[in-house]
């Protein structure tokens, strides 16, 4: 495997490691963006109002039991003919990534907002903060630790599933594994696996750092 990694032709070029990492990150980033766009507002709304708790809990459970591979394959066959060229597998793949990432973001956000000390919210109301100020000055910052933990599971889920989506031709590090399997090249598969694992760990670390920078030390109780 070391031999595989030390071959410079494996790193550069349109199907080199660098290009694959960039692709993996782009697809994951786009999926995460849309998942946040959907999950955050819903989680904030449900946490703030307390409406729809049962619905999102049920939704999260149901989506967790859906097999991601099956979903990707299903959507590719259903939507494939609708889109031209690469979009035929990119769009269905991204949809599945978003679908899997929304529940953790949504539940994390909801749980975070719901867990905010009711006394702090009452005090904020009593001193004359308007509802949106309460949401953004009090509830959101206090919910950040749980939002980040939701974001973390969502991101890992996305990176993991994006790897699987290589099976329906999606670019990214999964290519090394799927193509390696097709060519019976175990070293390429193992290299892909190592790279995906490393990517997941690095992204996880990055989110950890981001959360450390944005979450108030008053909440983490770190001195």
């Amino acid at each position: 495997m070391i031999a595989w990694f030390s071959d410079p032709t494996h790193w550069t070029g349109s199907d080199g490691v660098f290009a694959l990492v960039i692709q993996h990150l782009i697809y994951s980033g786009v999926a995460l963006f849309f998942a946040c766009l959907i999950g955050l507002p819903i989680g904030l709304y449900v946490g703030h109002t307390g409406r729809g708790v049962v619905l999102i809990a049920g939704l999260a459970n149901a989506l967790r039991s859906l097999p991601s591979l099956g979903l990707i394959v299903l959507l590719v066959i259903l939507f494939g003919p609708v889109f031209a060229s690469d979009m035929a597998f990119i769009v269905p793949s991204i949809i599945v990534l978003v679908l899997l990432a929304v529940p953790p973001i949504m539940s994390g956000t909801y749980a975070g907002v719901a867990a905010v000390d009711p006394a702090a919210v009452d005090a904020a109301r009593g001193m004359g903060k308007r509802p949106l100020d309460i949401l953004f000055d009090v509830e959101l910052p206090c919910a950040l630790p749980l939002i980040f933990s939701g974001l973390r599971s969502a991101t890992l889920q996305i990176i993991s599933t994006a790897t699987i989506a290589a099976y329906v031709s999606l670019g990214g590090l999964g290519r090394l594994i799927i193509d390696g399997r097709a060519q019976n090249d175990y070293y390429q598969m193992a290299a892909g696996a190592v790279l995906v694992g490393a990517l997941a760990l690095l992204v996880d670390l990055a989110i950890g750092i981001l959360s450390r920078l944005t979450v108030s030390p008053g909440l983490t109780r770190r001195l």
Partner: protein
Amino acid sequence: MRFDWLYRESGRIAELFLWHLGLSVIPVVIGLLLALPLGWLAQRAGFFRSTLLGAAGLLYTIPSLALFVLLPLVLGTRILDPMNVVVALTVYALALLVRTVSDGLESVPPDVIQAANAMGYRRLPRLFVVELPLAVPVIAAGLRVAVVSNVSIVSVAALIGTPQLGLLFTQGLQLRFLTPIIAGIVLCVLLAALLDGLVLFAAKRMTPWQPGGAER
């Protein structure tokens, strides 16, 4: 949907279903058995806690397909060996359940533990008679997550060729044929619901003292 295809293939589908069932359940059972002592260690503060929970978090980060591919390197197995899948899923279940067991033991009210100590329970009997039974609701909640996500992850193993319902997906794509895909998804969801219900039922039976059973 081509029901005639389903009927013709029903024998093979049943076989795949049983494989899927085994691959989903066995790792969770092994994971739970390992997680009980490890979670107990992790719950007691100090070196074990940070190490065990840190390692669990790290393992949980690794994407499933990567783990399936890498395990032969570690275990010396062949890539097609179902053992890889079993071990990988055990690792996931263990990583999730160590935290759950430790959280569950932590959820036992300190008053109850003090009362048990005051009555003269020694540490191990106290663990089995008092702490573990009271930790069941939290452990069961984690177990449900582990079981349900395992059912979904098992199907990924189709990409390296292990027999289970995931093969219906790969077959469906190759044939551009929806029936096996839909059948696979439905069976996966059913299996997840079945196992989830089983854990829920068992937990309810084990916690008659809870107002709503194990549902939290």
